[in-house]
């Protein structure tokens, strides 16, 4: 799987053409309604004093999302702001700050950040949440800021996200460990019965 990164750290990442020119930088990442995919990016100009750019970058025009740049084929793929922002409003704004509920009805925390896959997929791998209690079994640090895989059955309603109850057994407390947990979570092949089966936690 491709490198994961938090959407917040994408802000300021340069948008670079295959010709090597930096034409903009990422201002905000916009997600679709169920927060399953990146819809696109709003942009600002390059440099400290540059303001918002009257252009946006729809995900379909992204060549690759890399660690150091968002690559595009050429400057002509940039679109009107409405191509991305109209969908942002349709998705009832931001997922950041939304409450995270399990499908068993427990509130496990609030969303701090959205974790996205690098490369060409545009997929949301999960969320960084501020947990109400330590979700990482056996973690002595009792970290409260943890990563939860997105899951396939997630629902988004208003200001809350619903994740499968068994997703909380696949949490990790850093991005490196999270990549492996997302793989394990996807490989588990659908929801397990009432979470009786033990997850792959050590």
């Amino acid at each position, binding site marked *: 799987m491709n490198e994961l990164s938090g959407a917040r750290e994408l802000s300021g990442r340069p948008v670079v053409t295959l010709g090597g020119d930096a034409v903009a930088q990422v201002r905000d990442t916009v997600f679709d309604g169920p927060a399953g995919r990146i819809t696109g990016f709003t942009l600002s100009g390059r440099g400290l004093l540059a303001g918002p750019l009257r252009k946006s970058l729809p995900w379909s025009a992204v060549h690759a999302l890399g660690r150091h*740049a968002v*690559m595009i084929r050429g400057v002509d793929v940039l679109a009107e702001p409405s191509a991305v922002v109209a969908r942002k409003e349709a998705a009832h704004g931001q997922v950041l700050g939304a409450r995270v509920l399990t499908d068993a009805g427990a509130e496990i925390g609030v969303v701090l950040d959205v974790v996205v896959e690098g490369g060409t997929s545009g997929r949301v791998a999960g969320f960084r949440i501020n947990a109400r209690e330590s979700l990482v079994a056996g973690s002595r640090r009792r970290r409260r800021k943890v990563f939860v895989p997105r899951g396939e059955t997630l629902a988004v309603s208003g200001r809350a996200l619903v994740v499968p109850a068994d997703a909380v057994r696949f949490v990790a407390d850093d991005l490196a460990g999270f990549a492996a947990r997302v793989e394990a979570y996807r490989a588990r092949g659908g929801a397990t019965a009432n979470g009786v089966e033990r997850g792959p936690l050590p």
Partner: protein
Amino acid sequence: MTFSEARGLPVVTLGEAREIGVLASLALDAAAGRITHLRVTGPRGRKETAVAWKALHAVGPDAVLVESAVPPDPGPSGPRHEVLGRRVLSEEGDERGTVQDLVFDPSTGRVEKVVTTLGEVAGDRLLGLGDHALVVRAD
């Protein structure tokens, strides 16, 4: 031949043996993988001129010879981007070091390799050279 060897070579006209300056830098067409122009600094570091690669007679170990009847060249079109010291970016958007040197074929101007701080990149993997980076195709 490497650019570090070629830099500073005297640039001499073939007919009059007049030294018009020294080789200062190269202009590339990255997507085509070739050198399009030499930039030549005149005597006493003044006045830079461009010489198109096709106006060259020979690039040797000790001098660059240009045809005598070279019309003044407007130089490469578009903004100037030095390749040396330029950041290298893969087309996936990951940094791959910075450019340290170029290896080129002195008879054709084809770029054979780009030497970066993290290793070598074959000349046919270059995609573009812009204000931000030299973009290279994935391995």
